[in-house]
Structure formats: structure tokens, C-alpha cells
């Protein structure tokens, strides 16, 4: 065998041995136990400290208040949503007290009007809605009810109301077109308001023969949009509605 090959062989064998030795010492112990990773890392991540104790923890000591909240509109809102992460309080109740937000800016984080929130979710305009008064003056956060059953639909249907306000239908009260039983205000998702279910309802103003003021647009009900209810094409709340 040529001398060159022998010498190179020795050099490469030396490198290979060094590599194997280094590999033997440096690869972490638990690497590869469960997969191509350091199994010990899972345990160290699982051992991170808790920040949020979880709503079950609160029930143990604060039963009356959690029971009250549990039957209210806030039943799905866990205590730590408002009171902040309270794991420390749960382990040392005497020394660490969770905060109770009382300032006006807090509740609008959820209840301030935002068009992206679902219609029907109670929203207010924080600037116009009883300015300067803390929310808790009228609303109990553990059993939030409107102090008076909302007289106006806009308390919950802000998005629709704000659109309607600048539409051609601005002067019509909601109840002109929608039947809304009183129960809807108390249990909004169980009892739903109605919508006009005949073409003639809109025809009451918009048919050619209707006895309404002459500036209201008219349509020939017999030929126009046959087979559809009017609101399936025309969105009555929309300012640009055609």
C-alpha cells in the first residue's frame, strides 16, 4: 500500500477516535431517551411555576361569591380574568392579596364598543356612558345586571344601532320591524327577537300603492325580487343600503 495512504489513514483514524471520544462525553445523558431531544428538558419545562391558580382554587375559600358569580352573566368569566394571576395568593392567602380593579378603564377592555365584537355582546361607549362614575357604582361585577333592564336595544346591539343611526331608517325604532319579547332582555340567547317574515311588511312603505310619504323609494312588488324576502338582499340598517 502506498505510504501516502497509510499516513492519511493514521491521520483520519486519529480524528475519528477524537470525535467519538468527544461525542461520548458531551452528549447530554437523557438525550434520545424519548425522541431526538433531551428528555430532561420536558421535566424542566413542566416544572415552571404556576401564575394562574385556576378557578377551582378560588371556590375552596370564596364559596359565597363564586356561587353568586356562577349563576350570573359572568358565570363563564374566571376570577383571575379580573383579579389577575393569583397562584401566589392561593398558596399564601394571608400575605399576598390579589388586586381588585375598580377604575373605569378596566371594564371597557371587554365592554367598550368595538365593531369586531359580536352583536349582542353588551358594549358601551365609555365616553358617553355615565362618564366619571366607576362601573361598580351601578353594576356588580359578580352578578352584572343592567341597573334597569335596557330600554334601548343599543345597549347590546351597538354595532347595528350605530349603523342604523346614519342610515335611511334612522328615525324608525327597532321595534317597528323586530318583535322583542321582554324575556329577550333577561335571557338574550334563549328568547330571540323576530324579523319581518313577509314581503308585504316592507311593502307597507315601499310598495307602489303604499300610503307613505312620497320621498320613500317605491318598488313594483309583483315583479321585483320574486321569491326573496326584502332583507335577504337589502340590509335595512346599512347607510348605503340600496
Amino acid at each position, binding site marked *: 500500500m502506498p505510504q501516502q495512504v497509510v499516513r492519511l489513514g493514521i491521520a483520519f483514524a486519529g480524528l475519528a477516535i477524537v470525535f467519538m471520544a468527544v461525542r461520548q462525553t458531551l452528549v447530554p445523558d437523557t438525550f*434520545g431517551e424519548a425522541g431526538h431531544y433531551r428528555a430532561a428538558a420536558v421535566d424542566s419545562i413542566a416544572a415552571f411555576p404556576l401564575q394562574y391558580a385556576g378557578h377551582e382554587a378560588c371556590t375552596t375559600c370564596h364559596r359565597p361569591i363564586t356561587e353568586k358569580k356562577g349563576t350570573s352573566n359572568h358565570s363563564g368569566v374566571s376570577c383571575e380574568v379580573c383579579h389577575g394571576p393569583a397562584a401566589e395568593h392561593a398558596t399564601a392567602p394571608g400575605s399576598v392579596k390579589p388586586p381588585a380593579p375598580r377604575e373605569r378603564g378596566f371594564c371597557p377592555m371587554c365592554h367598550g364598543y368595538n365593531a369586531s365584537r359580536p352583536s349582542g355582546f353588551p358594549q358601551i361607549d365609555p365616553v358617553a356612558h355615565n362618564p366619571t362614575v366607576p362601573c361598580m357604582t351601578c353594576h356588580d361585577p359578580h352578578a352584572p345586571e343592567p341597573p334597569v333592564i335596557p330600554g334601548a336595544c343599543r345597549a347590546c346591539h351597538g354595532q347595528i344601532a350605530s349603523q342604523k343611526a346614519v342610515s335611511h331608517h334612522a328615525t324608525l325604532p327597532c321595534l317597528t320591524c323586530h318583535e322583542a319579547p321582554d324575556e329577550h332582555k333577561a335571557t338574550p340567547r334563549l328568547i330571540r327577537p323576530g324579523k319581518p317574515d313577509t314581503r308585504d311588511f316592507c311593502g307597507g312603505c315601499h310598495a307602489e300603492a303604499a300610503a307613505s310619504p312620497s320621498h320613500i323609494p317605491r318598488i313594483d312588488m309583483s315583479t321585483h325580487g320574486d321569491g326573496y324576502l326584502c332583507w335577504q338582499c337589502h340590509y335595512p340598517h346599512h347607510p348605503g343600503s340600496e
Partner: protein
Amino acid sequence: MQGYIYPNEFELRWSLLIVLYPYLTGLVAGAFILASLARVFNVKEVEPTYRLALLTALAFLIVAPLPLLAHLGHPERSYEIFLTPNRKSAMAMFGFVYAWYLMVVLLLEIWFDYRRDFVLRAREATGPRKWFYYALTLGSTDISDRALGFDDKAGRWITIIGIPSAFLLHGYVGFIFGSVKANPWWSSVLMPVVFLFSAIVSGIALVLIIYIVATLFRGKKVDMGCADKLATFLFYAMVVDFSLEMLDFIHRLYESEESIEILSQLIEGRLFVSLIVLQVVLGTLVPLIWLGVVSPALSWRGTRKVPAEVRRLIYLGCALLVQVGIFSIRWNVVIGEQLFSKSLRGLTVYKAELLGVEGLLMAGAFVILPFIILWLLVKIMPPWVENELPAPPEA
């Protein structure tokens, strides 16, 4: 910033240093493929650059992983890539492709090629120099005709293995980017191929620059036969490279997937200077035209009209422009990718910092460093034809 981008996209994770990495690696692969022209394909004209190309490849290969290393959040943990490589990861294989290329291809080929020189120098020199050259021979001091014949044959075989390895090295770098399906700017099967050909272009251009400049500095005459041949190969490689890039471009435009809108905003705005002006016009079209007119690539007649001195200057200018163009390709790939949001709804901006680990100064240092290493290598192992050592006196 414009439109919507995810909060983690304001700052670019892969900065200037990652632009350098494919750029430097490409120079390695290109220089090696140039060397193989002389060795395997027997292109006699480029013989004067054979050893120079090998040393250039080595110098740049030594530096190529350094920007990567400097960019890591934890460089001190980088050895993990050798110890526990994730076989599914394109990047994990880099360590091995790199090691294979450095140890098995480049060092071996250089060793076989220079062994005779090492032995002769070890015999002539005294003191520490003697020992240094002796160590380089690894104790293999037989320079009989038979042994040298074996060296030559071994070198030839290694070059033959080396060509696919060089393709692998840079095609693979392209794969690191091209295989990221999350990113429409990267995700393309053509990416490795484009990387490969742009690597060949940049490598030939680099050796051309070094050859012309070093020869002038040494007060020697540039072998115009060699320079013409290099320029010709540069021209051919550029034509292939540019066609591939255009194919990629047209393919994207024609397919016009959901990302096309944000990508055209990217090209028309943020990347206009680096893509259209630098990469395509200055880095490709201008040198292509000049080389086409001046070099013997298209016809021998063109060459005769232009005096050698002017031709040399034009080659040098073209090669420099090509370097700018190839660097812009790397920039557009690496930086361009991160300028638009994966939500495809917005663009961010990148400003390279001057100081700091990822700054311009650091990047400049990584560009200069291979030249310093090359200078050292040339001192230790002169690659020039006229330095060929005479045969030893008969013992």
C-alpha cells in the same frame, strides 16, 4: 413598515452575516469547479489558475462558517450540530457536508498536489521551517516517480469526487433556503440549482480577479490565453445562471399564487435597487454584454480587436460587477425573504447596523479575512507556475 406584520417580524432574525454565508460558500464551490476544469477536463489554458483556485477555495471555506457561528445565539453550543444532528434538518447536515468537503475533498487534493513541494521544502529548509513542512507531509516523504504518479492519480480521482461534492456543498446551501415551505419567496425547487450556477459564476469571477491582480502585483505578465478562457467560461456560466433565474421569475409570475401581490410589492419597492439595479442590470446584463463583445466566448474576432491591456481591465471590471451582482442575489434571497410578513399583508424594513456582532464592520472583516488567509497560504504554498520546484538532485 407598511401593512400588517406579525410582532416577531419587526426585526430580521437573519441579517447581513447570513447573507455572507451563502456568498462565501458559493465562492468556494465555484473556485473548486474552476480548478476541476484544469484537472479533470484538461482545459490547458486555465492551468495557471489551478493551484490558485484550490487555495482560494480553501481560504474561503475556512471563513465560510464563521459568519454563521458569529450569528448564533449560543455559538458555544454549536458543537451540538455534530454530536446530535437532527437527520430531518437541512441545516444539521451542513456540518457533515462541510466536513466532508474540507477534509476529504479540498485538503486531500491540496495535500496530494503539494506533497512533493512539502517534501522538497522540508529538505531544503532548516530549523522550525523544516519541521513545519515535515509535519505537513504527515511523514510521507517518498517522492519517487512511482509515488508522485500515485499522487497525481489520487488527486485526479479526488477532483472527480470533488465536483459532485462542490455541487452538493452549494446546492445544499440553496436547499436550506429552498426547502422552507413557509416562505413563498424561498420555497422553490430551482433554488439549489440557481445557487449552484451563481456559485460557479462567482467563483470563476473571483479567481479571475485574484489572478489578474496578484499577477500585476508580482510584476509578472498576465497569461491572456488563460484570462480569455476564464472570461469565456464566466460568460457561459452567467448565461446559464441568468436563464435559470429568469425561469424561476417567470414561473412565479405565471403561477401567480396567493403571495404574488406582496412579492411584487417587495420587488417594486424594497428590493428595487438590490434586485433590479444591482443584481440584474449591473451584476448580470452589463458584464454579459461586455464579456460577449470582448471575450472569445462568441467569436474569436472580437478578441483581436481589443488590445490585451484593455481586455484585461474589462475582465477585471466585469468580474467585480459580477461579485456585486452575486452578493445582491444572496442579499435578495436572505434579506428579501424577511422583509414581507408571513401573513402576506405587510412589509418591514432592514437597516444593517455599523458596529456590533451583526454589523457592517464585522461583515467587512469576514470578507477581508479569507484574503489574509489566502495571502498566508500563498506564502506557505506558492501556487505560481514559475515557482515550480526543480527536481531534486539524484541521491
